[in-house]
């Protein structure tokens, strides 16, 4: 096998592997990986210096929730479109120009990765 073909093969294998990873993530990865992401997302949501979402949203079982926004329940069923849900968190002004909810992505309150974790968590609610 020439060096060139070997390189091609490595590249191909690499692409397949990376693609597989992306697929696994979108499908929720393994159960234990997803459980980790959900736990991390819950931390981002509850941390007063990060999401602090409980100051406005009720989540069943959480302590001292506010009621300025709607309760976060049945999220999979009510927000099946992941991108739309991310947009609501990233820049809620798009849906409601008068909203009081902070623009977490637009104002860099949370990173993209943190918002992904958050979404994994609230999809579990």
């Amino acid at each position, binding site marked *: 096998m020439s060096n060139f073909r070997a390189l091609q093969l490595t590249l191909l294998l690499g692409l397949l592997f990376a693609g597989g990873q992306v697929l696994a993530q979108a499908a929720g990865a393994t159960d234990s990986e997803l459980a980790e992401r959900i736990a991390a997302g819950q931390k981002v949501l509850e941390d007063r210096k990060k999401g602090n979402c409980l*100051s406005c949203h009720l989540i069943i079982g959480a302590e*001292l*929730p*506010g009621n*300025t926004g709607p309760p976060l329940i049945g999220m999979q069923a009510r927000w099946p479109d992941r991108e739309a849900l991310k947009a609501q968190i990233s820049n809620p*002004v798009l849906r409601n120009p008068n909203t*009081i909810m902070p623009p977490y992505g637009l*104002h860099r*309150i949370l990173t993209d990765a943190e918002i992904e974790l958050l979404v994994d968590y609230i999809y579990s609610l």
Partner: protein
Amino acid sequence: MNWKKLPALFLALMLSGQAQSDPETDYLALQKLYQQKFPDIELAEFKDGVYAIDAKMREQWLEMEDFPAYEIAIDEGEELYNTPFANGKSYATCFGDDPGVKSGYPRFDEDLGKVVTLEVAINQCRLDNGEQALPWLIGDLARISSYMAFASRGKHFDIKIETPAARAAYNVGKQFYYSRRGQLNFNCSGCHQLNVGQMLRAERTSPTVGQATHWPVYRGKWEDVGTIHKRFQECNSQVRSLPLEPQSDVYRSLEYFLTFMSNGMELNGPGSRR
């Protein structure tokens, strides 16, 4: 013609071209808003702020009021108020025999072209008599102000906005109240009007109407009485924006706007808050 008035007049002329709201109209609109949101609560009751809305918080607050933490501040303020300056004069030289003058503050000073709050007037009195100005937020100035607020209890706010320059200052304050700022992108009106009475964690927000009646306020968190500009700073910081300087032109205008929205209401300061 008073030349000192020129900048203020110029500003007023520039602004008058735009759709400028009239304070009276704003005042009536806001009263209507709270009457609609809280049909069972008389507007006059909002002098107690959030405690007019939440029965449980009110109960705890009334217990605190049995032994109010601001009482010492009133006593100390009275003593400071009655201690003559080095030149033999006193605060009474500036304010007259009755220290209960808070119902007329803030007022717009046409000659200065600026809003004068009670705290500014107290420090001006000191400066005019060769004394040093006191720090704005907590401490002796807030104590003197607490004594004067106490002496003003039972009176009703009578804030006047009569000239174009005064109206321009009012509009600066109003604009600040309705503008979004900070990383969290909040405006004062978002919390105190649109979502008034909602819970933010364990805190419930009070209506704009009545927010000015009871200052200075004692808060456990401050371990002292503080002026309303300390609260402005705190509400600014909460949304991760830089607070302005106390008694800066914009904060003075904000207090002017806010106090006008409590016009006609009974003064019940100093107050205590969580």
